[in-house]
Structure formats: C-alpha cells, structure tokens
C-alpha cells in the first residue's frame, strides 16, 4: 500500500489554460512516495484513468491530447528528481512514447499491464515477474470496477526486476466498453 504519501506538486500552470478542452487527453500530477518522487500520467478521457489518478489523491487537469507536450515535464522531472519513478494509466501510444523517452534517460519498465474492456468485461493482462503476474491479475479482477484504485494503491510495490515476464488474464464486470488502457511503472536503473 502507498503510505505516507506526500504531495509535492499538483497540476501544471498550462493545465489551467487548456482545462476546458476535452478530447484525448492526459492528466498529469506529481507525488513523492517515501523515498521516491512519483510522476503520474493518466488519460483524462478515461473514467478508469481518472479513478487511478484520483486515488493517488492529487489534483489533475486536462491537458492537450498530444503527449509531445509532456516532454518538457518529463525532462524537468528527471532533472529535478533523478531517482524519481514514473507511472501511468494511459493509452498504449502514450505509454510507448514515454517508455521510449524514459529509456534514453536510463529508465526501464518494471511493471505493465493491459486493461481491455469488451462487452462489459475487463481483461487484465499483467506483465510482471513469474510469481507475481497471476496474483496481480487476480487482485485486479477481484477489485471489480475499482481495479484502478487497487492499482493506484499498489503500483509502487509491483516493480519486478526480471526481464522475463509472465502474463495472466482475469475478468470482471465493467460499465465501460471498448477501452484499451495500459498501466505501467518506470524506474531509473539506479533504483533497481
């Protein structure tokens, strides 16, 4: 569980200017969790991503859909918090870009999961260590529609250090349809 979370910094100034723009958007906020500052990205158009970000108890705002607008934020975070961690519940493309950006700064992916909703059923595909994957997927499924909250509460304890991963699928009811989100955690190699 995340404990002793300390809020460091909330939304960016730019968020306010474009908060009125709906659309494919990311929310972003920044925390400190014990020894590690945490930079959080979430897809603002997704109720699940909002639940994830909301559970982390930080203000977040709509910012424009283009993940390129986050590059400065990412670079600034890395400069100010070189041991900080980065997490998110986002569209797949946003994860891909951020993962690639982070990799050039020495970050690596220590957890990721696909959350795909079809026909009111959400399927969790977890990439983690062999011993954890099924456990995490089952826990997400058992959390039913509150899986984003469970994820938020546990995200920083889901890191694994093996390159090889296992996958597990579980299903639970959902009120949304046709959604494909990815949750992820990136940490700098110095934290491994």
């Amino acid at each position, binding site marked *: 569980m995340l404990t002793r979370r300390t809020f460091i910094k909330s939304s960016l100034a730019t968020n306010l200017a474009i908060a009125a723009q709906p659309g494919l958007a990311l929310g972003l906020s920044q925390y400190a969790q014990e020894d590690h500052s945490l930079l959080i990205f979430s897809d603002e158009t997704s109720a699940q991503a909002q639940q994830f970000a909301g559970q982390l108890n930080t203000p977040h705002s709509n910012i424009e859909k*283009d993940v*390129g607008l986050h590059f400065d934020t990412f670079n600034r975070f890395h400069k100010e918090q070189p041991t900080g961690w980065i997490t998110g519940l986002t569209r797949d493309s946003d994860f891909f870009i951020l993962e690639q950006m982070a990799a050039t700064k020495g970050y*690596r992916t220590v957890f990721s999961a696909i959350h795909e909703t079809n026909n009111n059923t959400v399927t969790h595909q977890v990439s983690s260590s062999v011993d954890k994957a099924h456990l995490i997927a089952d826990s997400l499924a058992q959390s039913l529609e509150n899986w984003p909250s469970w994820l938020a509460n546990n995200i920083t304890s889901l890191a694994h250090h093996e390159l090889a991963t296992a996958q597990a699928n579980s299903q639970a009811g959902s009120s949304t349809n046709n959604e494909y989100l990815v949750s992820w955690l990136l940490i700098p190699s110095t934290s491994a």
Partner: protein
Amino acid sequence: MTKPLPPGISLEQFNSAISEMEKVVGKAFVFIDDVNELRSYRDPYNTTNDADFAPSAAVAPHNVEQIQKILAIVNQYKIPVWTISTGKNFAYGGPAPRKPGYIVLDLKLMNKILEVNEKHGYAIVEPGVSYYDLYNYLQEKGIKLWIDCAAPAWGGIVGNTSDHGAGYTPYGDHLLMQCGMQVVLADGTVVETGMDTTSNSKTGGLYKYGQGAGIDGLFTQSNFGVITRMGIWLMPEPPGYTPFMITLENEQDLETVTDLTLPLRLNQVIHNAPMTVDLLWEAAMSVSRREYYTGTGPMPESHRKKMAKDLHLGIWNYYAAVYGPEPMMKNNMELIQDTFGSIPGAKFHFDDTRKGDPGWDYRVKLMKGEPNMTEFSLLNWIGGGGHINFSPISAADGKDAMKQYKMIEKRAHEYGFDYIGEFLIGWRDQHHIFMLMFNRMSEEEKKRAHDLFAILVDDAAAMGYGEYRTHLSFMDQIANTYSWNNNSLWDAHHAIKDELDPNGVLSPGKMGIWPKNLRGKA
C-alpha cells in the same frame, strides 16, 4: 539470453575494444548492460525476433575527435558500428542495427545548434538535434523561421534528412533543403561538402554545390561516412497561412483528386505537399477500431461508412495549404476551390468548422512546422499497435495512384489487415505510405505482417514500383529490386563502400549496402 557479439569477434576482443572506447568517451557513455542500458536500442516494431536486431553495445561520443578515435578502434578490431542520430526512426527499425552484435554509434550527445541565420533562412545543426530542439530554440529566440518536421517530431533533423524523410510545409523535401555537411569517413578523415570547404567560408549554408562533384547524397541512406554536421534551409514565417481539408466521398475520387492536384502543385498554386489520407488513418486519430468493429480481418465496408458518417470524414481526406500575403492566398484558394469543387460530393473544411478534431489539428500544426506527436494515436487503432511502413513511390497520376492503392489494399485484406494509408504528393511523384498495423504482442500477427510486407515488395516491383525507404528486415529485398543492368547501381554502391570503408565497419547492410567481408552472407 546470450549476449550477441559483433560477427567474428571473441568476447575477449569485444571486452578489449569496449575498454578502449571507455577511455575515449568515458565509462558513462559506453553501454553494455542489456537490461538497463541497451533496451533503448531495440526495435519494438520488428516483425521477426527481437534478437535479430540486438546490439552488443552502444557508445555515445561527444565530438568529432571522439568519433575519429572510436573509428580507429573499430577498424583495428573490425567491429561494425551502426550510426544513429536520435534513433526515433520507428516503423523503419528505430535505433536498432541491421544485424545482432553491432555496436550502436549513438550521436545524441552531439546536439548543438551551431548557427541559425534568420536573414538567409538556414540552420546548421549536429546530429543529436531533434525537431523539438530546433523549434524550441527558434521560439525562445523569437526567430521568425519555421522548421519542417517529421510527423512524430521527436526525430532528428540530420537522421530524417539523411534517410530521405519528408515533411509538410513548402520545405517538405528535406534533402532538397539540405545545404552542406561535415562527414567523418571510416578512416577518420573529416570532409566538408559544398562551400564550407573553402577557406573562411561565408556561404556554406547558402549554396549547395561548390565546385566539383556534389557528394552530399552519397552519405544519405548509406554507410559511407558519419554525418556530424548539416546545414538545413528554414522557411521564413509567411505573412499568412490557410490550411484546408477536402473530404471525398468515393474511393475512386483518389484518381480525380490526384490528377487535379498535379498542375496546381507544379505551378505552385498549392505550396506544400498535399496529402490524400484514407478514412481509417484519419479516424484512428480520435477513435479505435474496436469502437466500430470487434471482428477479425479488415473492417467491413458498412462499418467504415458508419464511421465516416459519424466522424464527418471522407473515404479520402485531402489536406494542403497556401501561404503568403492575403491577396495571394485568396487568389490561390479561389483557383483551388474552383478546381476541386468539380468533384461530386467534395466538401471543403477550414479551421472554423474543423478545429478541435484531432486529425485536423495535427495536420494544421505539421503544415506550419509545429512539432507534435499526435500521429502516434494511430497505434491505438488496435490493441498493442505496432507498425512498419511500406512506402512505394507512385507517379502523381490518378490512374497510377489507384492502381497502387488497389494492389496494396487487396493484399492487405487477403492477409487480414486493414488498409491504412496516405499519399503525399511531392513534386511529380507521390510517396505512398501504407501503415501496416499489427498487434506487436501477437507472434502470429507479426509473422503475417512480415509475410504481407515481403509479398508487397515483390508485387510492387512486378508493377514497376520501388520503395523510397524501408525497415531493416526488408533492406536487402528492396535493394534487389533496384537491379537494372545486372545490379549496376548496387555494384557502384559496393565499389564506393569498398574504397571508403575497406574494413566494413560503418553500418554494414544499411539499405542493402554491404562491405565485401559480409557481402552475400546476410
């Protein structure tokens, strides 16, 4: 996993070479850890095996002198290096090398903007400068020049230009706008091209050719040297800019709109490279496939039509812009509207009605050189989206465009994939980009995509088409289609390669150009 080593090199030799490189650039800039360091030098979109393109190490020099020393080391050990600038060439291989075990020569630390000349409209940059970097620099300094960026703008100017990339402003032919370069040859010799090679040159960024053979092109899509500096012309900010979109209702309209475009383009009524974009590409900017169709295989026509109606899109969607003083733009727009207004069902769209639509917004940015990453939304069309681009050239001719489109669409559907594509009219040609989208988590789908791509190369060649750029996996196959007169062109490439790089250390296999020690062994 066993660490890949450079071909023909023992672990002892490898370690020794690495140790020498560390002395040149510092230990912090030589990367050998597969888990923590080399993951960023893989191609996440490869359609075969990750190990096929896994480097053994990467080294990041800070300057030309360090490059010279690294080349001396790899020549001594005969270790291949694979040069990248920012390494964001995804869909064509990204930062990954052509073969496992190469050492990536990563130039990202050479990221200085050496000069911007506002009066004459050019910049001189190092290879690590991205489109974002140059754009931000111009913005911060208040310099009234535009860049012309690739659609995902995290890429580098030198890398994109040397890979014959294209953009969307009137300066969209990137190699045409390149002016002067500095190159380190395999033996460490530094060469400057064009006017820069004269003493106290003041015109390196102004005139491309100098005296004697123009050799800049030799260093593009090739492995004859390491480009360490490049001049690039920048467009002065125009007094006006009017982007527009035309939605077209019928598949056959591709033929008409292409034929109507050519005279407007050649006569500069339309200033930039117009794009004719298919429905699915446009739709993918704002919706995913599963929102309209959850079945397998290509999306059925009925679902496509519903999507087009819902999103106010055409089967084809045409984007272009005019630039300049208001009277000039007004005059050109009248001509353009008269011309395309003759297509039944064609509808013009402008900022007042389209703003806020993700597809429109990012095209508007691209056509004025404003960097963005929106095009990556395409990857959300399917879950786990990966892609490689099949990129044949066609004539800017309606019948030719239709012929090429139908050929690719038929094959794509036969292999169970959607056709997602666009045509970009350069001057007299069209770059046809078929974005072959596959689920990168599915081995079966990756193999199917690979097989489709391979057969498209053969089909295109049989119809007289060649590709302008390609993914690592298909460089040799496509090189073999440029085979006129018993492969005389590639024989010439190889003769140059053997002369300039006798040990074959620079990017072996780049675009199908191999050094003699590896030729025929790929």
